[in-house]
């Protein structure tokens, strides 16, 4: 199975994590986080903050590249690490960005960070979206709540390379208008004529101009055509579940439907054995899976 197309790492020529520079410096140890400094914190919603970090080693910062959809282990020394999707633009050279919802031990500590604080990052990890292979297709994003963080980099990438894609539709839902992450970007997208943007909230409230209704419901109302389209969804598990059902109803094949999974992870490098769904490790084989791939796996999502 060595010829399954995966990169083969050996101790001698190791390419892991942020960069070769890093691997060389730390003796090729994929467990060692790169130290970075928080340079900016954006409060997205009452429970979500976006952190922008610069690697302390300029060499690492310079060489840092990642694919849209890839994730990273982001954490604080002394508290622990958690996995988050990298939400900066893939073309961004100045910083790396994660959006974090306050929920558990690590995320609570992350929310207490201030600009200038030191963090540890191991990135990028995982497979990312096959954005190159999708060129010429219509991309349909269906996202809810914090799910936008996982798709942010991909949306940015396809918007940056807008000409390469037949069309871009974004359906974005939140429980309440204050719960839209990246509202500043949403406003920008609203201005753009080359994107079809549909915003929806679960229950109507004063001053709301856009759609009202749960994401899957609105999706079925929109009735996008499956021809030459890739559908990508991310959001709370329950939303993903029903969005996938809606896609099927609308005639999308499992091969053209994608989602990105989230699991409890520790090592992030396919060893520690906790993020597996059957034989697939979400940290190295995912987090991006097509619905066709998911259907092959046991019901352990």
């Amino acid at each position, binding site marked *: *199975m*060595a010829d*399954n*197309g*995966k*990169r*083969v*790492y*050996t*101790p001698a020529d*190791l390419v*892991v994590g942020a960069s070769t520079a890093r691997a060389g410096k*730390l*003796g*090729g*140890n*994929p*467990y*060692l*986080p790169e*130290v970075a400094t928080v340079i900016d914190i954006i409060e997205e919603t009452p429970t979500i903050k976006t952190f922008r970090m610069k690697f302390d080693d300029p060499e690492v910062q310079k060489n840092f590249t990642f694919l849209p959809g890839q994730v990273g282990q982001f*954490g604080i*020394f*002394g*508290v*622990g*690490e*958690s996995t988050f999707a990298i939400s900066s633009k893939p073309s961004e050279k100045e910083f790396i960005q994660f959006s974090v919802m306050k*929920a*558990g*031990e690590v*995320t609570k500590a992350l929310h207490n960070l201030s600009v*200038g*604080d*030191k963090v*540890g990052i191991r990135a990028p990890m995982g497979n990312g979206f096959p954005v190159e292979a999708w060129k010429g297709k219509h991309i349909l994003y269906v996202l809810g709540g914090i799910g936008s963080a996982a798709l942010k980099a991909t949306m940015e990438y396809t918007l940056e390379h807008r000409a390469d894609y037949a069309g871009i539709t974004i359906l974005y839902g939140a429980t309440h208008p204050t719960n839209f992450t990246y509202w500043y970007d949403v406003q920008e997208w609203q201005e753009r004529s080359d994107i079809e943007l549909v915003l929806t909230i679960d229950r109507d409230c004063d001053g709301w101009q856009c759609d009202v209704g749960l994401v899957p419901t609105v999706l079925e109302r929109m009735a996008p055509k499956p021809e030459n389209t890739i559908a990508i969804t991310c959001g709370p*598990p329950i939303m993903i579940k029903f969005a996938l059902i809606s896609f099927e109803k609308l005639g999308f094949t499992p091969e053209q439907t994608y989602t990105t999974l*989230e*699991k*409890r992870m*520790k*090592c992030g*490098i*396919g*060893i*520690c*054995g*906790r*993020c*597996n*769904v*059957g*034989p697939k490790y979400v940290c*190295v084989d995912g987090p991006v899976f097509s619905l066709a791939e998911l259907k092959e796996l*046991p*019901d*352990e*999502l």
Partner: protein
Amino acid sequence: MAIRFLKQDQLPAFLGQLAEKARVVAPVKTDGVVQFQPWVSGQDVELDVLLAKQSPKEYVFLQTETYLKFGYEMVKPEAAGGDTAAEEADPVSVDDAAVEVAIPYETVTVEPQNEAPAQVIFGLRPCDARGFVQMDQVFGGYGGFYYDPLYNARREATTLLAVTCREPRSTCFCTAIGGGPAGEEGVDALFTQVDGGFVVEALTEKGEAALAAAGAALTDATDAQIAAAGEVKTAAGAKIDVPFALEGIRDNLHDNIADDRWHDQAMRCISCGTCTYVCPSCYCFSINDELVESTGERYRVWDNCFNPLYTEETSGHNPRAQKSNRFRNRFSHKFWYYPDKYDSLLCSGCGRCIMNCPTRIDIREIVRVMGAPAPAVAAGAASEAPAATGDAPAVAEGKEA
């Protein structure tokens, strides 16, 4: 490489010579319990009781391994060209810009840890050695995965001197998995007990080096001794049952993934981690941080898929919330998930999980039942899951036929 002989009474001398060059780990009985322990001169090596409670994996894949130490420090920068003492004495007079520069900032120093002293594990069994080979795939980056420097550093510094199992237990099933009581996979030198001592075969350069280091205690084996060792090996191999055939197990596990019989099999499981911690090849772990004041460490520590919190996500959602899910994961991992990734099995047939399970769950039975095709849905009996024991032999026979 020449085959050598070690007289029974020369064993302490042999180990003593090894101990001069490296740490020697051997099975030792304490309070009636046999465990691998760092051997000290004068200790009896326990080779009669077959299988120490745990495999010696903890000497290569430590149960708790600190791999990172870190310390925070607040640095108060000196204002460029300014008189620091004066500033401290009279902060009010300092202008805003200077104050900003003088704000202390946080730094963190991160220090990787990876110690790997040379060691020799003596008295492990061929199944234990195979356990290492199976873990090597995982930590060694087989198939394009990551290379684990912590495990490998220790692994490279470790020599495995295995002892042939002369009297296999009824729980042994190494031959079914492709090994044997005198299996050579992963073994650096094999010791076979015959009358009066051990026939010693070096199988790798590492093994040869270890034998050379303690050569004074060894003599060349006679043809008779070599022949006797051959007989011991053959006889031992014949004593081991083959409880199941490997063919089709992976595919059947795949097909049976949603099978209700997993619930029946998991009934008597108490969801502890004993089987995984005594296993020579279970390798799952967790990573935790510890911080006291401004210094701390990050360590990895054995964890197991039976731990109810193992997969629990922050949201409270648990993909394997049910005991039967976790139970299924262990066996599927050994006979399906791991083979898919690493082209071999994650089990060496030592039978430790059978012997040490608080409720004696029998991996052979699980594989026989769940690794066989689901019984044809008999008319009306579909909802009545068959009792495992009653059905098992029949299923196994059906498979071999």
